[in-house]
């Protein structure tokens, strides 16, 4: 599944007047929607105009995924990165695994320039308790205070 989110509200979402800086910070919440408990997931986040730098990857809302997710090293190569892969897994009991729409991560970003970044995310895989791939959809939302 592929989701596109224009970052039009990078600053207004945090309740401050828009800064004049060409360097801006924003947080993007990533949601996974499944009908079965999910034990592992992986997604890619890309930005078409190479304006994005990832500056932090935060855990989601499920206690079964209490630690921060992991990212691959593509985020740090060649200065500005336009693609990052983020993944996590849980060894929790099935009853503790999230189901339905769950915030699985918050990605903290730095963007440069006046152009609006175009974020795109692709769910690579989501697996259930037994390790089999399950149907799932992914979506993005701006983080608000």
């Amino acid at each position, binding site marked *: 599944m592929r989701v596109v989110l224009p970052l039009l509200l990078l600053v207004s979402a945090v309740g401050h007047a828009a800064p004049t800086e060409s*360097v801006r*910070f924003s947080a993007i919440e990533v949601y996974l929607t499944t009908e079965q408990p999910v034990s592992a997931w992986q997604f890619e986040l890309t930005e078409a105009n190479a304006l994005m730098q990832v*500056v932090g*990857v*935060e*855990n989601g809302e499920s206690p079964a995924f209490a630690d921060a997710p992991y990212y691959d090293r593509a985020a*740090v190569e060649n*200065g500005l990165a336009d693609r990052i892969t983020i993944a996590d897994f849980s060894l929790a009991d099935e009853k503790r695994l999230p189901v339905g729409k769950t915030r699985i991560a918050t990605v903290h970003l*730095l963007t440069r320039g006046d152009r609006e970044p175009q974020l795109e995310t692709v769910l690579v895989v989501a697996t259930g308790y037994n390790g089999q791939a399950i149907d799932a959809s992914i979506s993005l939302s701006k983080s608000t*205070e």
Partner: protein
Amino acid sequence: MKKSDLLKMWMRAACFAFVAVLVSSCANDGVDSAPPQQPGESGESGAIEEIIVTGAKVGGREQSRRAWRKKPAVVERDMSVVAAVAPRFHRNETLSLSSVAPGEELWIIARVSLEAQGTNARTDDSPGSGAMVARPYEPGHEPTDRAGLVPLPLKHTAVDASISGYISTVNVRQQFQNPFDEKIEAVYMFPLPEKAAVSEFLMIIGERRIRGILREKEEAKAIYEEARRQGYQASLLVQRRPNIFEQKVANIEPGKGIDVDIKYFHTLAYQDGWYSFVFPTVVGPRYNPPHSKDPIHAVANGERTQPGGGTAARYLRPAERSAHDISINVDINAGVTIEDVRSSHRISTSHHGAETTRVQLANHTTIPNRDFVLEFQVAGERMKSKLLTHVDPGSGQGYFTLMMYPPADFERIGRQPMEMVFVLDCSGSMRGRPLTQAKNAVRAALDHLQPEDTFQIIRFSDNASQFGRTPVAATRQNIADARGYLKLLRGTGGTHVLQGVRTALDFPHDPKRLRFVTFMTDGYIGNEAEIIEAVHSGIGDSRIFSFGVGSSVNRYLMERMAKEGRGAVAYLSPSDSARKIMASFFERISHPALTDIQIDWGGMNVADVYPARTPDVFVGRPVVITGKYLGAPDDVIVRGLRDSEQHSFRIAAGRVGQNASISKVWARLKIADLGDRQAWESDPYDELASEIRNTALEHQLMSAYTSFVAVDASRRTEGRRGTTVHQGVPVPHGVRYDTTVGKN
């Protein structure tokens, strides 16, 4: 009272109060001319650079009085407060928190930036806001003993280590809290083991855990500074030395906290059946010889960074202390029966089967001012040599670790005549117990010399001198004279290790004897690279055995000197028996099992092997070599000299295992080796630096060229950048403040 005053104050403590004394080496001329500032915004003006927080006797009476006299304008700012405090200065009384009466006020005074004073001599690039006020303790949480307590941001360090076999994985949580009424940036310089491979970094705000990103150092710093400037909470971890790191946490709001998790792993040292786990807790005060590159200054808490660049570690004065304490838990899964556990500190142990043990630091030994050393003895008469391998599933690249232990029959070899060179650090930091211990160690070693041996004693501090013009025979008379010479040695002056190294290595080698140079020092210097270069270029046929003396030794320097000197390292803490440790050490170095080692790797195509120069194998102490390979694991043949004759032994290859940590151990070794080579190799195109950076990024490790940064971009704090507060730390246990930090 106007907030625009540089001197802004105070808290009316409910039942007690502190006195904070302005201590500043800056002139106060700029105080009155500083522009008005609003809380939380004043950092933008750049008028106030940092806050000096101190609540106890500051640098002795004379300094306090002098500081006071230098601030007449400040004194006049608020006479209601001054009236309560000033008389004590004039009566030459010692100020301490315990001496402050209830109802008095804490005041903390801002330092004027040098920019505001019209100078460009700033060494800190982080201007802060105006003066701050410390908050009272929560009811029911007041410390029982407030004497000398200085409000500082680092509350607690929690160390949780897990040992599996010979690799330790350690999570260090640093808990920062803002005790002031304005937001702050906390800065803390701290040590980690010299072999630590830092691979993970998290910033924790409540239940939220934000994983930091490893980036090139300058890029990470720019991101952090921008986040800080815009009011976002952020943290930055920078490596200053392979064993010294600097943590910055920006925009900690008043009364709130931010935790930082640092995860690293490292291999454990092994000797005579004992594994050793070390967690250092404090950076020793460094001496920087003139013209040192990238010095680390030792600066009193609240004092300004010294000119000349570099960084600074801040030290509490003798009458000061912070509330920072430490907890340490270590889970040991040895894989074989654990026979015994011992530690430098009081510990409690709980056994969970024969092979696993949990060790906890006892509550009353939680002051972080000396290395925590934990040793555990494993069962089995002797270790066996082995070859561990791992193939990266992604790249197909193979990695190996070869552990060489001499076979049993190698232990029955004759002793060769020796030329022993003892090099003693007699600088100010060694004064007292450390130098006494070093002398005791040399005396013990003299007792082990035999008539066919020769010896020399070299002392160094600001300069170097020696016992004899040339090494002398180990006769009874010469040994007695040497004892007299030792008696006269005193600890004073700077730590010019370079003088000691050159004096020890720059005289002709007696080919009939094995030359061993033993350095006895705490290693508190800031020019490690120069020392390593001098050892590398001057080592010749000598072997260096570095002997770390003290409670918080610069283990990085000790290990690197021994590595370049193809020798080994040992440590002597203030409470150790110098005689016992020297006896063991001497026994070992006088019986090398195999020297001048060559390795036949068989069918393995081996590359990038570390250490590049294979050290001698000594009885009871393994040599560990790590590298990359292609092809299938094969038997390895180790050849070398024993009693001047060629000998060899074979190490059988096992199957390729799942030892994923080997690749990171290899990467950490490679980074260390490249860093060492920077000391002596010409690198006009920064190729070594580039290789370090690429290796670190590929294997996701900290290095001198990569840093971790984490930003919470979901919320911007009120105001802009906070005031910088440096975390002061105690000088190491057994080290005198007056001969180290107080000398600067």
